[in-house]
């Protein structure tokens, strides 16, 4: 069998034959390093398993009486995501044009670097900084999402600006339109559907992010979730999780449908 596999082919060099084994060895070594070095506690399984079962049981019997205030908080979460995305999708436009090779010219590298730098700051860290400024509440979360999302939206904007058809702008140039007119009538109509589709996509991501920003106090359902977990009210944790899953799923499906119609 093994001989038949290579009929008519030169045998593989030794390093190719041993590559999978070598790769496995490296992976195992890294895993050993990770597992042996991790300072953590050992669980007493005789206690942990019944306890986890009890917690799961409580979580699967949600506290339905909490639904009205949960709905309000979820609405707040979605509104935060909406405003954060709106802010980012507007702020990202100049960044996107700056980073696009056919618009920003020699500054496009600078624009791309700027977008990468913005993206590297996690939302949670930004939220902490903004909380210092405006106090805990939804505004800090909105600002955090609004700034962080510029990184991704701007990059996607730049890509779609780079892919435009040059015909309309050249035609306008030949009849004497200035730069602003070229962009307004030749570029914007071409990229607008894609821009809105990217903004919607980011709205999906932001609606997930908005659920966790509350953990540091930046508004939304996360605050209630972390309080419920810390107070070990597991039936309330259950219903909050259910709410998050339902809302995120609805937004995913709805925005996916809308994006398909847009592009």
């Amino acid at each position, binding site marked *: 069998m093994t001989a038949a596999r290579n009929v008519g082919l030169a045998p593989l060099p030794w390093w190719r034959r041993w590559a999978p084994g070598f790769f496995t060895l490296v992976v195992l070594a890294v895993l050993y*390093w990770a597992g042996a070095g991790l300072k953590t*506690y050992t669980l007493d399984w005789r206690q942990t398993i019944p306890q986890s079962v009890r917690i799961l049981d409580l979580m699967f019997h949600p506290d339905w009486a909490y639904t009205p205030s949960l709905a309000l908080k979820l609405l707040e979460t979605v509104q935060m995501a909406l405003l954060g995305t709106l802010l980012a999708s507007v702020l990202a436009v100049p960044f996107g044009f700056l980073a696009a090779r056919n618009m920003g010219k020699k500054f496009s590298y600078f624009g791309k670097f700027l977008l990468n730098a913005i993206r590297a700051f996690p939302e949670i860290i930004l939220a902490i900084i903004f909380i210092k400024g405006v106090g805990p509440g939804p505004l800090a979360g909105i600002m955090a999402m609004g700034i962080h999302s510029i990184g991704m939206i701007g990059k996607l904007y730049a890509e779609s600006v780079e892919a435009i058809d040059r015909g309309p702008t050249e035609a306008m140039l030949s009849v004497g339109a200035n730069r602003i007119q070229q962009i307004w009538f030749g570029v914007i109509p071409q990229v607008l559907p894609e821009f809105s589709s990217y903004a919607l996509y980011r709205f999906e991501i932001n609606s997930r992010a908005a659920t966790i920003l509350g953990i540091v106090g930046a508004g939304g359902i996360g605050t209630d979730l972390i309080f419920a977990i810390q107070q070990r009210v597991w039936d309330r*944790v259950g219903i909050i999780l259910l709410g998050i899953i339902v809302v995120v799923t609805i937004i995913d499906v709805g925005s996916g449908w809308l994006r398909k119609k847009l592009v």
Partner: protein
Amino acid sequence: MMTPPDSGPKEKLARMGWLKSAVTILALVLVYAWCSSSLRIAPGQFTSGDTWKAMGDLVIRLGPFHRVQTCKDANTAWGDDDPIAKPDPAKVKAVCEDGKVLYVYVPHYLTSQVEYLNEIKDPLLDTFRMAILGAFFGALLAVPFSLLAARNLVRSKIVYWTVRIMLNLIRTVPDLVWAALLAGALGAGALPGVIALGIFSFGLNAKLLSESVETIDPGPLEAMQACGANRFQQIRYGVVPQVLPQFLAYALYVLEIDVRASTILGLVGAGGIGVLFNTELTYMRYRNVGAIVVVMLVIVWAMDFISTKVRERLI
């Protein structure tokens, strides 16, 4: 009677492009008004000087600056390289009598930061360890489930949809929520972080992998079926060779996401550098917070760079 070709209702609507833009803009303004009124947000909050002052204060203190606010501090804090140098009378007066807030450059900033990073080496490495273990177990667990969630391998609709819906549910819960949940249930530490990352990367890996299993070339599978290979043999020799490079690329991509996530998991008590970040923030030792933020940024950038390069080679 003939109608001119461009006077139908559809063409009329198409010529009224401005109406469409106006409606869209109006809708966006309404969304903004609705959200901002019910969240009680006013743009005025950002024009107030206090907001920028407070944020500027934080950002300055994340860097190499010490805030001098009290008289006691003003009498000791001055000096180019010695913290207990002779106080500068003019500046002491500014703080003690005029109530000014001053920022001084911290002497030996870089050396002290390097020393601090050396001190926090262990939680920093723990972050990587958590991410590696989580990504590995997530990827391992994703293999059987991705086969069950591939339409071309599973005949039974019930199994296919059950697995698919389960994977979707797992993915709707953000990683930080998993971590908070597990840290609450199992107690704070690195273990809930590893499990949370494992669950999160399992969901992501299984979804990506099942999609690439669904797009494989059915030729080898059919050929093997024709000469009587069993199910396991079909998967081992027909599916695995086709998706292995993609599997490795996805696993690496998920590892990158995990490293990113594991830096902040500590905010909910799930181990890694985030725990320290939270502590330093609570005690308002902002210079140390700044050092941790810089390390986080370096990690994120490095992971981004390495994994992009390796994935380019793999696929």
